[in-house]
């Protein structure tokens, strides 16, 4: 049952997490990491642009809340579309190069968007971020089904989105399209030689990645009731990448584990230990070095692999 994993994950959070707030954050970033993983783990594309898509989704939703007074679902839809559009445009340029040049192009665009937040501070609120949201409600076309005013409801909304995204990506990665992405990851030149227009596939991967990370950004805006400037900064991109790699790029569940690990560490350690990120760095390094697997396709493992290992021992 493909839905077992994500459902168990959110159920586990609901039971064990110290607060709904933390649980929601974990789920939201897990969705963003899913988008990142589609590019990195499945297509082999290392992009510093996930923060762009997350941030664009957040700001798109935020702006629609502030200026058009839409309800949460509409805002999320706008975030999703915005993420997909930006991902397609930026992606179409970045995929014109490969390898290190591709990575640098994503980095360049990430810095451009980061700068744009301050350049257009009339729109984004600059350093103060976007504020002034109306009360968040779940509903459509004016009628309200539910007020989005408690942590529990927020967590529920985030979780439903997470499970839906997880399910959709599971189908995608198991489809012929997903198989082609993996072929591109393994050996793009051979994929071209056997007849696949790889540029098209890479672009579509970007679009889907934008959809997923965009909705994560939208959820973030709803959750916070505002959009901080950090949403579109490079640090967000790096954080999402770290979560994705730490959790394991070989599986979708790894994206959840990465977000979980990162945010739990942050939650428990950051208040008391200034340099808690050194643990994160060490863990990341350990994960990466353990992937001695030679070629690119070996970049998986991480926590997800460890979980699978433990499950194997337990049986």
């Amino acid at each position: 049952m493909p839905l077992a994993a994500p459902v168990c994950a959110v159920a586990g959070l609901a039971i064990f997490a110290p607060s709904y707030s933390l649980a929601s954050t974990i789920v939201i970033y897990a969705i963003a990491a899913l988008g990142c993983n589609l590019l990195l783990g499945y297509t082999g594309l290392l992009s510093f642009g996930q923060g762009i898509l997350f941030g664009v989704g957040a700001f798109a939703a935020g702006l629609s809340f502030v200026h058009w007074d839409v309800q949460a679902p509409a805002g999320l839809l706008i975030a999703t579309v915005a993420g997909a559009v930006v991902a397609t445009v930026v992606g179409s340029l970045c995929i014109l190069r490969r390898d290190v040049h591709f990575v640098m192009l994503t980095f360049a665009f990430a810095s451009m968007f980061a700068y744009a937040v301050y350049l257009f501070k009339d729109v984004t609120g600059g350093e103060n971020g976007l504020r002034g949201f109306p009360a968040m409600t779940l509903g459509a076309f004016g009628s309200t089904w539910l007020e989005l005013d408690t942590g529990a409801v927020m967590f529920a909304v985030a979780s439903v989105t997470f499970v839906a995204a997880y399910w959709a990506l599971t189908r995608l990665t198991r489809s012929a399209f997903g198989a082609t992405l993996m072929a591109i990851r393994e050996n793009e030149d051979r994929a071209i030689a056997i007849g696949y227009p790889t540029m098209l596939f890479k672009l579509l991967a970007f679009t889907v990645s934008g959809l997923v990370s965009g909705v994560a950004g939208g959820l973030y805006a709803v959750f916070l009731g505002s959009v901080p400037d950090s949403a579109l900064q490079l640090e967000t991109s790096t954080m999402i990448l770290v979560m994705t790699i730490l959790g394991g790029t070989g599986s979708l569940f790894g994206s959840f584990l990465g977000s979980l690990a990162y945010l739990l560490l942050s939650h428990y350690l950051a208040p008391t230990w200034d340099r808690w990120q050194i643990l994160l760095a060490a863990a990341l390094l350990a994960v990466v070095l353990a992937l001695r697997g030679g070629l690119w396709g070996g970049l998986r493992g991480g926590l997800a692999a460890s979980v699978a290992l433990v499950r194997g021992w337990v049986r």
Partner: protein
Amino acid sequence: MDSTLLLSQALNGLGNGLIYFLTAVGFTLVFGLMNFVNFAHGAFFVLGAYAAFELTGRGWSLWVALLVAPFIVAAIAAIAERVLLRRMYRLAHTYQIVATLALAITVQEIVTLVWGANSFTLNAPESLSGTVDVGPVTYPWYRIFVVVLAAALTVLLWVLLERTTFGAKLRAGSERPDMIVCLGVNVFRLFSVTFALAAGLAALAGVLATPMRGMAPVTGTEVLGLAVVVVVVGGIGSFGGTLVAALAVAEVQSIAVVYAPAAGNVIVYVLMALVLLARSDVVMRRLSHA
């Protein structure tokens, strides 16, 4: 527009550019010879500065630090290469980037742990403090020294690459790594020495830069970003290209400070993106049909 400000900024660009070159050239040599993308290269820059910090803290002058720090860092680099990084040469670039990035973050965290997150500066030696009039501009002696020293090193490096056996092996190895083995070259030693050289140059650049702009653990990331831009624009493995690109990037940044202060780095990245896109297969093919 204030022409003296513009002039002094242009001069700054020259000094900065040469420092960027000394940093980036190591990255491009390693990439060109060993096909190894080292996103931890910025760490050498930072470690050089901190080594100098320790040395000057113990009473040694900056002159000594300039001489000794690069060798300390080169030694660290040689060990890291031998013990860890050598295994990554055969792996995909994307993996190398991820791995060395993780290494860079770890080093940054360790540096912060040991020395704190705050920035520090080194003082220029007594003999180089003070200013001199360069045309209408009053310019610090230290910065002139930086230009002179960096230029001299650039020339020395060129001589090393173009006129010595070592340089010949390095250049040949960059073009045909498989062939130099056949020519009886000890490839492993060549790699180690090149990697150490790259690190030493970056460390030296770090020491030179600190009296001008300060240093903090996070500087490594910024420096890395610029170094990769320089290498990518100048052409991987190209000495001349890296030099021109480094100077161009520094000048763009320096001039931008005059007209659009916060935008300097973004402009650099935009220009890099334009260069990369212009060189893409798609565009090149369109251009050749035109």
